[in-house]
């Protein structure tokens, strides 16, 4: 008697751990603890499940253990091998797996019910409820899988085609991930969604027939692809967050299917929290969710650059920086790619040693994932207080002698103020308000959103062309030699 409820208490405890875990994850100081609490909760849930299975008699133990080990090893391998810059892709991939797992559980449940037709509920309410839950978990789960895979590809920007000829630097052929979305695609999305709903109702009318649920799975996969393909890579973090919310919902529906509360609690909580996070992220990028989902943006049509600008050299820049009182460093994606953060920190130390006031202007969407710059600069031991958020740094920039932009582009592009084009309306860091602007990047070419940048051509702007880390190191030596 007690046996059968002790499990439920265990599950309740693990749900509580999830709740506290998510709560803690949303505040800087407690976040690591929050993550750990979540992991404990999950461990507890798995433990309870195993114990329950043992008590009920388990047969496929070897297979189950091997499944856990295989999955665990793959997870550990992926999580430890990934580069910092590739983490968002990895999160998208994991998320897709989660969605697929939920869908597969539903599918497997249906198949076993069909094999053993006694299990198909004869009562209408139960049939409806169970089959609707199965259908929804399949729909949401498969959309999550293909959507997440698409998002991963877009975050990566493209991929090397295997087995093609290597070029002189040993790389295979690279193709960009497509972004394609004519306006009529939105109708197609609506049609497929309607098709899904029809298929779900068909599964209910023919509960013994597996083909409808397979059809549902196929078109749900298609829906995931079509939903994400028109969305520009710059919006991917938002999309991944939304898909994360969906994978939670899929898990909750699976909970209804197998009648387990911990799935329902954890799943629907993640679903709701993920949705809120999606809105928070949209706000940080100054976009609305509908605009992200239904209007394509970014990365689609790159402008060609026709104007030219003469570059400066490190010595010149070092001289300009000599004897100033206030310097703001504005990092962007280029700093991440070239891993220049340590060199940047060294440069800041040199300036500070001279008594210059140095701070960093952090745009909320600089880089390729939220918080990208903070993570990198923290890695280079930059004190937290020097990382200033956009709004605060903007009020300081008019008094700034030199603004050094390293590998940033869209986030300082004045064209955003005009309110038009792909960047229109995005808040930017007002680097152009500083007395002198130094921009370190390899060329005059465009950034993520593919828009030319007038700031490069202004008189007060000095371009320092080259790889971010290399140029920062040269700048440091030049500065020391002064």
């Amino acid at each position: 008697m007690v046996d059968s409820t002790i499990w439920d208490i265990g599950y309740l405890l693990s749900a509580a751990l999830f709740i506290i875990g998510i709560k803690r994850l949303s505040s800087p100081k407690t976040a690591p603890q929050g993550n750990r609490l979540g992991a404990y909760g999950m461990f507890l849930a798995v433990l309870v499940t195993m114990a329950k299975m043992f008590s009920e008699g388990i047969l496929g133990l070897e297979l189950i253990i091997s499944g856990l080990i295989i999955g665990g090893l793959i997870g550990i391998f992926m999580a430890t091998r990934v580069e910092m810059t590739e983490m968002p892709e990895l999160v998208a991939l994991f998320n897709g797996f989660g969605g697929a797992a939920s869908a597969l559980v539903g599918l497997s449940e249906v198949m076993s019910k069909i094999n053993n037709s006694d299990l198909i509920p004869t009562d209408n309410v139960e049939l409806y409820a169970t089959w609707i839950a199965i259908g929804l978990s399949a729909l949401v789960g498969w959309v999550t899988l293909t959507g997440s895979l698409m998002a991963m590809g877009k975050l990566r920007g493209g991929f090397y085609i295997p087995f093609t000829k290597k070029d002189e630097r040993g790389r295979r052929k690279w193709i960009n991930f497509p972004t394609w979305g004519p306006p009529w695609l939105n109708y197609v999305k609506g049609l497929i969604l309607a098709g899904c709903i029809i298929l779900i109702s068909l599964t209910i009318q023919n509960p013994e027939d597996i083909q409808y649920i397979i059809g549902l799975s196929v078109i749900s996969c298609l829906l995931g692809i079509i939903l994400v393909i028109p969305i520009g890579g710059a919006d991917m973090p938002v999309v991944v967050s939304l898909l994360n919310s969906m994978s939670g919902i899929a898990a909750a529906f699976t909970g209804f299917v197998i009648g387990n509360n911990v799935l329902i609690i954890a799943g629907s909580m993640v679903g709701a929290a993920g949705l809120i996070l999606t809105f928070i992220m949209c706000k940080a990028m100054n976009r609305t969710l509908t605009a992200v989902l239904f209007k394509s943006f970014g990365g689609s049509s790159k402008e060609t650059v026709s104007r030219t600008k003469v570059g400066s050299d490190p010595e010149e820049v070092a001289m300009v920086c000599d004897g100033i009182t206030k310097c703001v460093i504005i990092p962007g994606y280029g700093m991440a790619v070239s891993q220049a953060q340590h060199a940047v920190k060294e440069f800041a130390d040199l300036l500070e040693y001279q008594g210059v006031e140095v701070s960093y202007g952090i745009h909320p969407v600089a880089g390729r994932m939220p918080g990208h710059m903070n993570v990198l600069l923290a890695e280079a031991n930059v004190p937290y207080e020097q990382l200033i958020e956009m709004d605060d740094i903007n009020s300081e920039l008019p008094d700034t002698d030199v603004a050094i932009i390293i590998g940033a582009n869209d986030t300082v592009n004045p064209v955003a103020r005009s309110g038009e084009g792909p960047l229109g309306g995005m808040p930017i860091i007002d680097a152009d308000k500083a007395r002198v602007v130094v921009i370190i990047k390899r060329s005059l070419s465009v950034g993520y959103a593919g828009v030319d940048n007038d700031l490069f051509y202004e008189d007060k702007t000095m371009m320092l062309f080259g790889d971010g880390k290399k140029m920062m190191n040269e700048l440091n030596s030049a500065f020391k030699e002064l």
Partner: protein
Amino acid sequence: MSVFLTSLIASITVFVLAIFLGFELISKVPPTLHTPLMSGANAISGITIVGALFLSNVQFNSGNPGAAAWLAFAALIMATINVVGGFMVTNRMLEMIAGKKRK
């Protein structure tokens, strides 16, 4: 039947409460934490691992493990990757942000 309905209503109650709770839990998140929070929440949504475990067991128990069993097995592997990888990668991100551990 009535038992099913009662438990369905109970489940829906739990569902509704958890959704409200999820909405309330997160109010203001600094941009630095967007990615780790997303990643941590994603790992938690891997709770479907519990379902995968059950079904694997049920299916393999049923005598001749057919397609259903292997689907459950695939679900188990995927969910485990999601869970283990998800919590680990979140941990790595957070450690970097906290600046405690460096490469």
